[in-house]
């Protein structure tokens, strides 16, 4: 843990306004992005964002530096708040199960080709396919590929274990490929 983080946590524990402002400046944008990935409606995202930081400021005493970094801890709270919000207010998303794509049989080579061979059209197809993933799977894919978090960190955020995350990632990757094939056909 860096000295800046230590002083930031000390300030947060004393409920200093300056420390809270610093926290928002450091992690605010990332948290907001994390929320809007799953909650597109801006008003709802703002509400969840506020709830996340209220929770962060209230529970800063529970933060354990040995378990995770401050960023991962904040990310965990944001993930939980977002998932809870979506459970309370489900949005209309056509899920993978509704598409009936189980019939699409894919080989490993096909999956690797879809994601590995740079292709602008495939990128657009992947973007379209991502919208059909359930929120938790979309979050895991983004954490792994975009935020480049380790399996251990993702497991901490989602309150799971690394092996489960690895198998989930593998399954979701294959699922995405199936959705792309279905869109193409």
């Amino acid at each position, binding site marked *: 843990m860096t000295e800046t983080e230590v002083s930031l946590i000390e300030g947060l524990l004393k409920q200093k*306004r300056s420390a809270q402002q610093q926290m928002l400046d450091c992690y*605010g944008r990332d948290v907001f992005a994390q929320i*809007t990935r799953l909650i597109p409606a801006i008003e709802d*995202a703002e509400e969840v964002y*506020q709830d996340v930081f209220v929770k962060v400021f209230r529970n800063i005493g529970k933060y354990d530096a040995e378990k995770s970094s401050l960023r991962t801890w904040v990310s965990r709270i944001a993930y939980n708040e977002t998932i809870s919000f979506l459970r309370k207010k489900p949005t209309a998303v056509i899920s993978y199960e509704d598409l009936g794509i189980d019939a699409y049989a894919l080989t490993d080579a096909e999956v690797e080709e879809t*994601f590995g061979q740079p292709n602008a059209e495939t*990128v657009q197809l992947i973007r379209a396919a991502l919208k059909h993933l359930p929120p938790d799977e979309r979050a895991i894919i983004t954490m792994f*590929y975009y935020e480049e978090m*380790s*399996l251990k960190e993702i497991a901490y955020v989602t309150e799971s274990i690394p092996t489960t995350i690895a198998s989930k990632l593998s399954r979701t990757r294959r699922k995405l490929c199936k959705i792309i094939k279905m869109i193409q056909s």
Partner: protein
Amino acid sequence: MKEEDMNHLRQQDKNLREALQQEEAALPQMPADLNARLMQRIEEQTAPMAKQKSLWLYAAIAVAASIALLIVFHFGKEQTPQEPLMAQKTIKQPTPQPTVANPEPIEGEPLQKVATAEVQPSQKPAKKQRKMVMKLVELIPTSEAEPTEMKTLPASVIAQVKAYDQQSDLSRTTGIDDADPFVAMAAQVDDIRQRGKRLEEEILQSMQN
């Protein structure tokens, strides 16, 4: 799947990473005043909490004060039987009025008869005086030492008994009666009896000599 394999997969899936980067770029921007609104909300939430905290503090102080007052009044009232007598001995009080007015009582007459028959009002109302003497009579047989002798206490001794509204300094100033006068009277009787015994012994001794 191992961590290394997963890292390899991450590097391999270029299209997927590119798609996610484009998705991130398309995300809505965070409103500029969102943090300011959040800080305002936090301040609004903490202000009533502080007010509530101070209210709880005042309530706790009030409860503690009332408990302390209760303790003071409760234990302040409890006095040992010696305390009224001690007060009587140390503080000179105005000449007390005798409650039993029989200057020359018949020797050997039982106490109960004297007490019930010859109570006369002095400064106190008659009812109260009678009540006081009756209570004294009730107290005598319960005395631990020689109850039989107490029953046959001579009336001459009773004539010397003086009943006071034995009160502490505090009760005199506050007007709240906090002492039991009958305890003082019982102690007096006991004291007179002891003196009588001593006198009797001295007379017997002098007669023998």
